[in-house]
């Protein structure tokens, strides 16, 4: 009986582990641009280049590399263009922050203007 429970638990856990790995794999495939195709990810493409990249990513995951390490590797070889969601950098951070900074400055100016008017 114990053996059966052990086998069932093992099967359930391994099934979960496999599906989690597949999910991660597909997530990465969907975020990698097929640079020889028109606006497709390697997930959607069957070109030689996409197939090779998928094999390489799969191999890297099997070797224990994480998502970031895979993106870093591909960016170092093909540039940031290869990922659909760019890694947070100074330029992208500036683009995100500037509207908030402008909003803060604007709010401050309005506040000062009203404050002066009241006094």
């Amino acid at each position, binding site marked *: 009986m114990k053996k059966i429970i052990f086998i069932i638990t093992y099967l359930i856990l391994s099934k979960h582990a496999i599906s989690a790995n597949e999910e991660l794999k597909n997530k990465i495939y969907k975020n990698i641009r097929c640079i020889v195709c028109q606006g497709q990810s390697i997930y959607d493409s069957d070109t030689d*280049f996409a197939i*090779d990249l998928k094999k390489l990513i799969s191999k890297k995951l099997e070797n224990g590399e994480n998502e970031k390490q895979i993106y870093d590797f591909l960016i170092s070889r*093909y*540039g940031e*263009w290869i990922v659909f969601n760019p890694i947070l950098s100074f*330029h992208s951070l500036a683009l995100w922050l500037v509207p908030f900074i402008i909003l803060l400055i604007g709010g401050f100016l309005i506040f000062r203007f009203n404050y002066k008017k009241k006094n």
Partner: protein
Amino acid sequence: MNQKYKIVILGATTVIIFILFLKAINTDKVYQPNQMVNKKIPEIILEDFNNKNSKIDQNIFSQKDFVLINIWASWCVPCLIEHPFLMSLKNKNKIDIIGINYKDENTNAQNFLKKYGNPYSRIGVDKKGEVTIQLGAYGVPETYVLKKGLIIFKHIGPINEDIVNKILELKK
């Protein structure tokens, strides 16, 4: 605060924001073939085309003062177009070219070289297309120019007269 200072600060902020946006907009958003240029050749291991038991690694490129890496395949039509230029670089200009045979059948590749000539001093085999990804390539043909293991130029597609001249210029 003085009105004059206010205008200067407002002007400076506007200029900074403008520059930031301009820089972000001008960032290259297409595939950058020069991503590997000015980088050392990464670690690669290739099976020797003529001897399955022998390997070719990145050190072979670091040892040479000036060398070309050419990724090719017998099934690749553009490779056939660039072949006479490679032969000329080898025979006329004495340029060392190391080939990477990409996803090819050995017999077909041997026949290709027999028929059109062999411009390569050595050939490595990339049967699965993994090594070419290490080099930042995406297909055939592609040519890299290396000086003591440093990639100084990369060309995607078949080389032509202009690229030959560029390579000769780089050798000087």
